[in-house]
């Protein structure tokens, strides 16, 4: 096991890659009660075209299959189901699907070894039948409807579709009711056998547990040990052009306030992905956070409220998504565009941003869930854990900021306006 110091946080991460290819990340705490185990496969909603294990031709499976599979993993052929097993010791169990990964987690404060072994086993034991597949369709249909009714999700979806032409990050994670109705148990087995292999998976454990006990349980797990070959997964990657799909989209939705979404599509090129994302983040914080002049202007001129800024790394691109409620959509969009025409930063402002980011990192480290989430995101986005985050923050400077930010075309953008159609 490698011992990795998390700089500036008084913490150590332990890492090992097992013979079967599984990556193990352990973050023990000595002052907590709970542990969280997160067992992750690098397979998400975007992976719908691939060459299945044992086959030669590329197949296409329906949208929403990763999420469907996540639901079905909780089905067991015989014996005890995961919810009940975990509950016996007051442990909570859950799972989630994202664009690029599916996660299964247990959180509790008892029976660590038993729960860890059980988690590895149940995720390693697929059991899909025509009946249990059919039954899930009604449940997932309601889940899809739940999100379809929410304007924030609708706006996010429309923005992604406007920015991306082919990339599968433009498709809703859960798919549609039509697409999930097409899913068969054969699709699920094909998908499972291809992507749920230790060489495509990793496990993160955070909180109160013994790291030597943990690695022992993982190494001795029979199901993991049954994987011998090092199968290389071939997934079809959609080619995505630099230009956006649609520059302007106007929609109506069952909501009370008008909203806009301003999306920017930025090619990452050869830059270091983490650093690139950070500098863009610094620009956004400088321009659009609560302490910015733009927000002050927004307030004084009644341009809108509830501005929210996120960024997302999607393959070769960084997407910036700005959303807000507004009664003056055209003026607000114009103002955002104007603001983005001068993206320089003063050194004192960059120093202040660095200070807040470093402070946040330290505060963050008290939370076992927050640290675990960050590790998972790092591995998915960057292929490794960023253990020197705090040092990297300290190293940010105006010279490198300018090199990166001044090379970006912020006009490569899409605007989505959503008008209310409520009476």
């Amino acid at each position: 096991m490698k011992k990795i110091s998390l700089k500036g946080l008084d913490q150590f991460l332990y890492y090992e890659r097992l013979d079967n290819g599984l990556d193990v990340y352990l973050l023990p705490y000595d002052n907590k009660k709970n542990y969280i185990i997160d067992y992750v496969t690098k397979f998400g909603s975007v992976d719908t075209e691939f060459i299945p294990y044992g086959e030669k031709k590329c197949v296409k499976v329906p949208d929403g299959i990763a999420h469907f599979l996540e639901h079905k993993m909780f089905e067991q052929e015989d014996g005890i189901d995961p919810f009940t097993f975990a509950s016996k010791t007051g442990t909570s169990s859950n799972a989630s699907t994202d664009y690029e990964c599916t996660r299964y987690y247990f959180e509790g404060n008892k029976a660590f070894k038993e729960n860890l072994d059980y988690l590895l086993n149940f995720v390693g034991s697929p059991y899909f039948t025509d009946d249990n597949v059919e039954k899930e369709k009604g449940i997932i249909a309601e889940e899809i409807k739940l999100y379809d009714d929410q304007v924030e999700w609708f706006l996010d979806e429309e923005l992604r579709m406007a920015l991306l032409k082919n990339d599968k990050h433009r498709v809703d994670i859960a798919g549609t009711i039509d697409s999930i109705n097409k899913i068969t148990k054969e699709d699920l087995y094909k998908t499972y056998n291809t992507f749920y292999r230790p060489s495509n998976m990793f496990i993160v454990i955070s909180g109160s547990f013994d790291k030597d006990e943990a690695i022992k349980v993982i190494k001795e797990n029979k199901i993991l040990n049954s994987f011998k070959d090092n199968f290389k997964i071939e997934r079809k990657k959609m080619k995505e052009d630099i230009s956006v799909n649609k520059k302007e989209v106007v929609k109506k939705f069952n909501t009370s306030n008008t909203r806009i979404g301003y999306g920017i599509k930025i090619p990452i090129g050869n830059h270091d992905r983490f650093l690139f994302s950070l500098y863009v983040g610094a620009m956004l914080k400088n321009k659009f956070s609560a302490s910015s002049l733009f927000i002050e202007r927004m307030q004084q001129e009644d341009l809108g409220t509830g501005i929210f800024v996120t960024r997302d790394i999607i393959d070769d691109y960084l997407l910036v998504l700005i959303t807000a409620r507004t009664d003056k959509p055209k003026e607000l969009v114009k103002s955002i565009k104007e603001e983005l025409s001068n993206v320089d930063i003063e050194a004192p402002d960059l120093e202040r941003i660095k200070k807040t980011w470093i402070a946040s990192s330290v505060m963050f480290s008290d939370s076992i869930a927050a640290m675990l989430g960050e590790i998972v995101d790092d591995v998915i986005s960057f292929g490794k854990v960023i253990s020197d985050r705090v040092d990297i923050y300290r190293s940010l400077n105006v010279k490198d900021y300018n090199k990166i930010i001044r090379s970006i075309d912020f006009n490569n953008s899409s605007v989505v306006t959503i008008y209310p159609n409520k009476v």
Partner: protein
Amino acid sequence: MEYKKIDMTSYNIHLIKTKKFKTIDIRICFRKEIKKNEITIRNILSELLTYSTDTYKTKRELSLKTQDLYNTNIFSICYRNGRYSLFKFHSSFLNEKYTEPGMFEESIKLLSDVIFNPNFNDIDSFNSAFRYVKDRYKKKLESIKDNATGYSLMRMLEEMNGSMEYSYRDIGYLEDLDLITLDSLKKYYNELINNSLIDIYIIGDIDDSCVKTINKYFNFKTVKSKKIDQLIKHDHIPKKIKVVKELDNNNQSKLSVGCMIEDLSEFERNYVLTLYNLILGGGTDSKFFKIIREENSLAYYASSSLAKLDSILMIRAGISKENYEYTVKLIKKIMKSIEKGDFTEEDINIAKESYISLLNEIEDNQDAIIEAYFAKDLLNLGDIEERKEMIQKVTKEDIIKVSKKVKITTIFMLEGVGQIEED
């Protein structure tokens, strides 16, 4: 962890000393009897006080100051708890050993500024802040239906009994918003500061010397506010179920079922009822999850929750409108089956384990620790070890007895007739 309560006559200081966290967390709670016509002004005051102060007259200035203090986080929230109206200020900042000497006092000073120096003196900056906060809040009030699940629950409680405190909208009322003036804000502010029950909680790596600092900056001079009986009991439980339906353009219908609970002993309220709720619809092991979701595929979420001080149990489910009758029938059937004792010792043990697990994890999180001490005073609960002992004492007969006291009185169905397809 060491706890110490100091009675300063006008307020209480609760010191919670622990080396577990890298931050210091302060919570200042104001408690008064709730009045319906004060809810909206209370919420606006909450937003105004954390928007700007007499010292930092704009959002931008206040935001810059919090960033300077190593990203200290200050916010406030208001809500109802039984007959009490609660107004809580939260402040969280790094222990100064991670930042620089003097930060502890500076952070407390800023919180004190937020509470004691409202931006009421400079008319221009007050008007600017008030206009923005009011507009933002108006948008929030206009879009309550966007949170369809929350809206359905709120309407159900209004239909249950429109004159009781539990029917008051936590978000307030549009018609009250326009009545607010600088004078009415000043008046309510003075009421809040001078006539509330005040508790100050501080948790972190602190010692008794911080009491001096707290008294320096939070020297409240309240006239001691009278304690009221916060528990709400039902004068009369209707025999006939009131059913109300409203239509909305959603894909999914939001069903809310309200139950009044007859006279409970303290033991029943604090322990038996908790287990009943867990077994009924409080998680993935509950009857609702297993029967409504898993067996019948009727819903993605179907759960129950308690408002203990209101003597109310609430059930919610997201369903398709065609399944309304069947879902309500199932809910009634499940509740009846528990009255007949149709649940096992294993069900009870799983519920107990869940409760104990939640108690165990309290000490991992500053908010949970403060909340536990707060609940101890409010609900007359014992400390954590006592609570673990008490929950073990609950028997199957206790749960059956309580189940018979839970009566469905109100059903509210926000019927989703589908999104309007329009561009």
